[in-house]
């Protein structure tokens, strides 16, 4: 089996490196290849050091690799920063002015190929030549992006691509990165979508019946809303950029109250402002979905990097006691399915539901087969006014805690909500007995949420080494496990795509049976391991944490598993 190839394009913001990456990705996916693209960027428009990483090969992949096979350096800094990651076989494509004296370095006279503004296109063509892509495949991707709008640009780009290919044919050294002919294996009739996690969340929300989204821009959540805006007209979904996150959550609650399935998307700092509104949604029993795309905190932290540090925050946000559910997708596909599911769940339970993701998943793109829409029913908000018991009581005390929810202005029934404690009619009350009954009623809905818990997924072997993870860590953890199994070890992975509520009967015996349980979390303190201990009494004694702002990779996990094993003794 041919080894997969990790490409890294590095440079300053504004040098067009994302364009190279996206066009290359598009061409590769159309040619039936498996890719995994991820981005790291600084929180700035120009300058800084940004990278676009792409893994190509037999795949499918769900994580990047730490080591680099092909480095495209648009500036000198890129070479210096990534030199330690280069594999022995690595190629370095760099301008002749700063190309290093290293084996595999290709000093490209970009100045001779064309004007500086087109150097990114030149680099793209060089990459295409290295990988053995057909000229037409790359050119089609460029054409589709530039479109018919700017034919003069298209011509210039075509010209520099041609020149670059010719230069490459004459000057490329021997290398083993030419992709094997994929035409035999790839099913070219199978349409695929190149999507990142945030795009899949937006599509899942729309499939689930979303009609309203309010937000205040915050990386890495904003692209969820940008994707929603693209489809808002077709799907009849209203998007509102609010003055702040406090307004955003309250607008969403207002819209949901009025009958529009609603969500907000934010990150930790913005979610801090939403905590008050979450509590209001709980008290008024208004459905609302909150997407929290995590990034390292506290405060502004590292705006464009990743972390799984807000689990406990989301679990406890909002004053007062009320039930909630937290879903944490582990893949692009789960971003789609779980968002639709979360929207249905918040409507069904009339309780706040959260989707917890992070920058890694948000900005990682992979080709996926078009999603299965059977089994996703768009949310139909509220109850039928013809069917409610009269007199209508919005907060009628019922055994399961669910009360009829009518929408305002659609019937003779008057629709009321109150953020104060209220009676069954929805009117403010300070009656102590009623207060107790209402608290019980709201908490009773946790049982409904428990009935719909997505069980954790066990993959691989039981009883031996068990890697426990949640949310976006799934891809790298499974890859590490697969590598260990190839080496003849017995390894299993247990992934939670729902982190609250937890049902011990779904997983406790697996933890107890395994010889060695290792918790893998993208935070410093092992928040999920602590939650498992709180709910089950089981202590996950061994943890692998990463909190430098970068995502897990199989390389990172294997190295840590090895050292920790040495430290704890061979068990």
């Amino acid at each position, binding site marked *: 089996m041919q080894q997969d190839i990790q490409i890294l394009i590095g440079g300053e913001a504004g040098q067009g490196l994302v364009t190279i990456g996206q066009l290359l990705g598009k061409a590769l996916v159309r040619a039936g290849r498996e890719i995994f693209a991820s981005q790291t960027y600084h929180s700035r428009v120009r300058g800084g050091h940004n990278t676009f990483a792409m893994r190509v090969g037999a795949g499918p992949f769900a994580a990047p690799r730490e080591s680099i096979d092909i480095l495209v350096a648009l500036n000198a800094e890129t070479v210096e920063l990534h030199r330690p990651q280069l594999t022995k076989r690595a190629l370095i494509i760099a301008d002749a002015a700063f190309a290093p004296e290293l084996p595999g370095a290709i000093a490209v006279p970009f100045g001779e190929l064309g004007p500086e503004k087109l150097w990114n296109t030149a680099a793209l063509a060089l990459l295409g030549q290295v990988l053995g892509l057909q000229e037409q495949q790359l050119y089609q991707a460029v054409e589709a992006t530039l479109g018919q709008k700017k034919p003069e640009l298209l011509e210039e780009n075509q010209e520099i691509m041609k020149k670059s290919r010719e230069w490459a044919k004459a000057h490329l050294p021997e290398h083993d990165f030419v992709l094997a002919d994929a035409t035999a294996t790839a099913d070219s009739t199978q349409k695929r979508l190149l999507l990142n996690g945030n795009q899949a969340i937006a599509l899942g929300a729309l499939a689930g019946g979303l009609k309203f989204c309010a937000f205040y821009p915050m990386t890495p959540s904003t692209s969820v809303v940008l994707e929603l805006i693209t489809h808002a007209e077709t799907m009849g979904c209203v998007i509102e950029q609010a003055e702040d996150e406090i*307004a955003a959550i*309250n*607008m969403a609650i*207002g819209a949901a109250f*009025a009958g529009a399935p*609603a969500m907000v998307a934010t990150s930790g700092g913005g979610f801090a402002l939403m905590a008050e509104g979450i*509590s209001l949604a709980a008290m008024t029993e208004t459905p609302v979905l909150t997407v929290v795309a995590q990034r390292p905190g506290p405060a502004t932290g590292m705006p464009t990097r990743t972390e799984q540090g807000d689990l406990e925050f989301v679990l406890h946000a909002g004053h007062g006691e009320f039930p909630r559910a937290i879903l944490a997708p582990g893949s692009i596909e789960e971003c789609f399915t779980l968002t639709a599911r979360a929207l249905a769940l918040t409507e069904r339970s009339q309780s706040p539901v959260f989707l917890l993701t992070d920058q890694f998943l948000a900005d990682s793109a992979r080709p996926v087969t078009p999603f299965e829409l059977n089994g996703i029913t768009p949310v139909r908000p509220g109850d039928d006014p013809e069917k409610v018991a009269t007199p209508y009581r919005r907060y009628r005390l019922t055994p399961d805690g669910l009360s009829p929810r009518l929408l305002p202005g659609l019937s003779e029934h008057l629709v009321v909500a109150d953020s*104060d404690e209220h009676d069954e009619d929805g009117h403010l009350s300070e009656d102590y007995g009623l207060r107790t009954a209402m608290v019980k009623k709201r908490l009773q809905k946790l049982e409904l949420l428990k009935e719909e818990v997505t069980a954790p997924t066990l993959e691989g072997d039981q009883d031996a080494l068990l890697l426990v993870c949640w949310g976006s860590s799934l891809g790298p953890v499974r890859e590490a496990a697969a590598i260990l199994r190839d080496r003849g070890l017995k390894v299993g992975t247990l992934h939670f795509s729902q982190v609250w509520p937890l049902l011990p009967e779904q997983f406790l015996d697996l933890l107890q049976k395994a010889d060695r349980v290792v918790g893998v979390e993208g935070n410093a303190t092992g928040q999920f391991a602590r939650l498992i201990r709180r709910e089950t009494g089981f202590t996950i004694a061994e943890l692998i944490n990463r909190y430098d702002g970068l995502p897990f990779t199989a390389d990172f996990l294997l190295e840590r598993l090895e050292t920790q094993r040495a430290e704890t003794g061979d068990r």
Partner: protein
Amino acid sequence: MKMEKVEQLRHYYLRHDKKFPHVWCPGCGNGIILGSLIRAIDKIGLSKDEVVLASGIGCAGRMPVYADFNTLHTTHGRALTFATGIKLARPELNLITVMGDGDATGIGGNHFIHAARRNLNLTAIIINNQIYGMTGGQYSPTTPYGAKAATATGGHLEHAFSIADLAVTAGASFVARGTVYHVPHLDKLIEQGIRKNGFAVIEIMAYCHTQFGRRNKMGDAVTMMEKLRDRAVAVKDPGAAGSPGTAVAAGASDTPGAAASAGALDSDSLDTLDGKFAIGVLTDVEKPDYIAEYARLRAASRLNAQNAGNAGK
């Protein structure tokens, strides 16, 4: 208005059999405002089901509890954001928010200016009693300089701003100021505000004899009411119809102060305990409201899509 009619309105619009007696202090002007509100809605002829009344927290925030509309008693400062969500989801509903000065322009100040800028078709009634009443008399954004409050025992060090001016600057389509003394005038202003297509602000100068008057030795409720009468100066309505003068003529005893002519007041003296301030319609401009703009954008993008489709054929 005849007493029978009053009785009728009261029974129709108020949750009279459930929620009374109300929480407001004897002598409070909030009940007068509730009366004005239901008379205005009755005059326009809206059914109870077409109206959504949303409020925040505070004495003013309690108003929806007594009125038999679709009502929402939300969190402190957030009434407008909640109402915005409802309006965007269901533009056919008539949204009215009732807030106090602290609710609307303190904790909710950011939402207030942006709601004005957004120009959704909402009516914002702001009761300005210059103090946080319900929580015990802490100073608010409209407490005058030097006034005493529970949190300004030696006299307030900060200055008040004018809610109406803020609304004008932020872009509200309709801005009016009334008082709880000039009741028929207030009925008319609220009616105009609800009828206005766009963001309409009605600032109502009220008083809190319990928390503000007592601390500042301003006398009882009646004295404070008389003070409002003397401080208010009518402006000439910028729109031709419904000038305060005409509106007030219906109830002669409520005619605003003697200096009731345009230009008699250079600026409001709301940062003092006894300065003059203008009442009437302060701004009334025509501009497309947000829902209309949204509809225009959608129609345009549909047209573009159609044209693009045709061009491709």
